[in-house]
């Protein structure tokens, strides 16, 4: 009986999740058509291009290709930094909100979400206005006499990090808030009565309880940061490819190599999937401990 009731769910997962991924997987093994499109012939050329280097013009002996691994590494590192910053700022923020009186928590959450009613593109461009050489931030600092010449912020990695942090902060705050809110502070009091130090209370009692919230927040920030291209393009100056812009260029740009774009997407997805599986397994092991 349960099966027909769940049918819409299965159909949803099948049509909107599995089918596109399967299509992408198939495309990554097809032959590229010149200037976009695919020829329906099996080919490993896309994966070959990713992993094998034959020199700038493809006529040298084959070695391991570092170009795309480098692009992946840069994107992954950037996502790790963004996630760390979001966690460092997001955790105290969530803690602060969750420990307010229940009547005022709603107001704080409301304030956190207000900027996110505005489109991501517009928020990113606004950030650029704020930090540019003759923008308000630099004018203010120069007016105070803190600096003599404008801080070069636009078109730097710092600006990209700022953009990612600003874009994804609520994805960190909200799950942690949900976890902390459920925490019963009577546990802390009980532990303190038994002479536990504040550090021990934090490590042994609070952390295990809010950990799922922290991990959910980290995943929610890390995954979109990895594929982000608005912040790198607009704030970082688009001088180097990120995973997101590399894929975009294969489909919409002049490179027009659909199988390669599909292959890069598949490799990215496999990496993320492996990380998530690893996490799920370690959680399961902890659950049985």
């Amino acid at each position, binding site marked *: 009986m349960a099966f027909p009731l769940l049918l819409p769910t299965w159909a949803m997962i099948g049509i909107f999740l599995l089918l596109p991924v399967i299509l992408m997987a198939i495309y990554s093994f097809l032959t590229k058509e010149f200037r976009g499109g695919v020829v329906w012939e099996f080919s490993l050329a896309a994966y070959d291009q990713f992993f094998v280097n034959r020199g700038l013009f493809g006529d040298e002996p084959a070695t391991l290709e570092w170009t795309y691994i480098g*692009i992946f590494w840069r994107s992954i590192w950037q996502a790790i930094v963004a996630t760390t910053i979001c966690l460092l700022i997001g955790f105290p923020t969530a803690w602060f909100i969750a420990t307010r009186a229940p009547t005022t928590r709603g107001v704080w959450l409301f304030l956190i979400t207000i900027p996110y009613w505005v489109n991501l593109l517009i928020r990113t461009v606004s950030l650029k206005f704020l930090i540019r*050489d003759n923008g308000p931030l630099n004018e203010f600092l120069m007016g105070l006499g803190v600096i003599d010449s404008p801080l070069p912020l*636009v078109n730097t990695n710092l600006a990209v990090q700022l953009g990612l942090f600003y874009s994804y902060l609520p994805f960190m705050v909200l799950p942690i808030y949900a976890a902390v809110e459920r925490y019963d502070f009577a546990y802390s009091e009980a532990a303190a009565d038994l002479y536990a130090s504040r550090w021990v209370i934090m490590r042994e009692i609070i952390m295990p309880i809010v950990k799922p919230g922290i991990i959910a927040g980290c995943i929610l920030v890390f995954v979109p940061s990895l594929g982000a291209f608005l912040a790198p393009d607009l704030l970082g*100056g*688009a001088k*180097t490819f990120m995973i997101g812009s590399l894929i975009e260029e294969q489909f*919409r740009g002049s490179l027009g190599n659909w199988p390669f774009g599909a292959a890069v997407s598949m490799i990215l997805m496999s990496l993320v999937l492996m990380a998530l599986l690893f996490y799920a397994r370690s959680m399961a092991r902890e659950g049985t401990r």
Partner: protein
Amino acid sequence: MKRLAFATALLATPAFADGELKIYHWFDYIPQELVDKFTAETGIAVTIDTYDSNEAMLASLKAGKMGQYDVAVPGDYMVQIMGNEGLLDSFAPTDLSNFGNIDPKWVDVPFDPGRKSSIPYQWGSTAFSVNRDVYKGDIDTLAIVFDPPAELSGKINALDSQGEVLALGSMYLGMPQCNSDRTQLKALSDMLLNAKTHWASFGSDTAKDVLVSGDAAAGMIYNGFSARARAEGANVEYAYPKEGFVVWMDNVVLLKDAPNRDNALKFMNFLLVPENAAAVTNHAAYTSGVMGVEPFLDDAIKNSPENNPPASAPAGEFIAVCDEPTQKLYDAIWTNLKK
């Protein structure tokens, strides 16, 4: 029930009895008043979908949108690519009563000899502009963007477009386009990698804004876009460099399997009327390919330095369409430049 029947009737009846026209066009490139004028004259209802790059348009047409649009507005090299891919329908010059209005120099164009599938829309050039408050020296050389003076180093925006950057780079080094000489291409690649150390950013849509805001003191840009930067208060001068510059032309093409072929031809004919062509130019600030538009042009556009190259300027070059093996080499240079 009655209401439902009424709604069905509304949906079933076209809003205009005289048919419709589906245009696939660049974003913000045709004034709405001109579209309204076409509808008023012909009774044809017009629907416009937009795109933001030639490549994006080609990708979406190839991904299954052929047969949904009557006309599109590709750039020169893209007309040739679409023709090679069999995406274009053709017409006879006699199908358009205003065909004779096309400036003769734009009839036998390399990307569509004799204009069998396309008519000129607007044309212009791509070079670069310099903020004259920052740099006051000579700017008639591509060295300004590829080997810049100290004042401009680190303050240059490059177009985020492979075709234009590599074509301008080739001109700077005096190489032909679609070159397959590996040694020369290696030199081109090295020159660009070195030039990139002087660049602040890559951006095409943002090319005007970075000049107006002062984020960049110089930048590769299209001539009409630079005119708009100047109109918005930036003290920028557009250069016609001595080594050469890119000329481009956007064209209205008749798409294969156009659902409303006759209406598409009416629209193309309409755009060849000087007054209508001038309306587009007044909006976009480029140059029309139709003769007799001058009386209808705004003075600011007719006399703008961006649209009137100095006598000493060399002839511009269209971006060439390379064959697949050659294009692969240029793709490699571009990917390497941005890795």
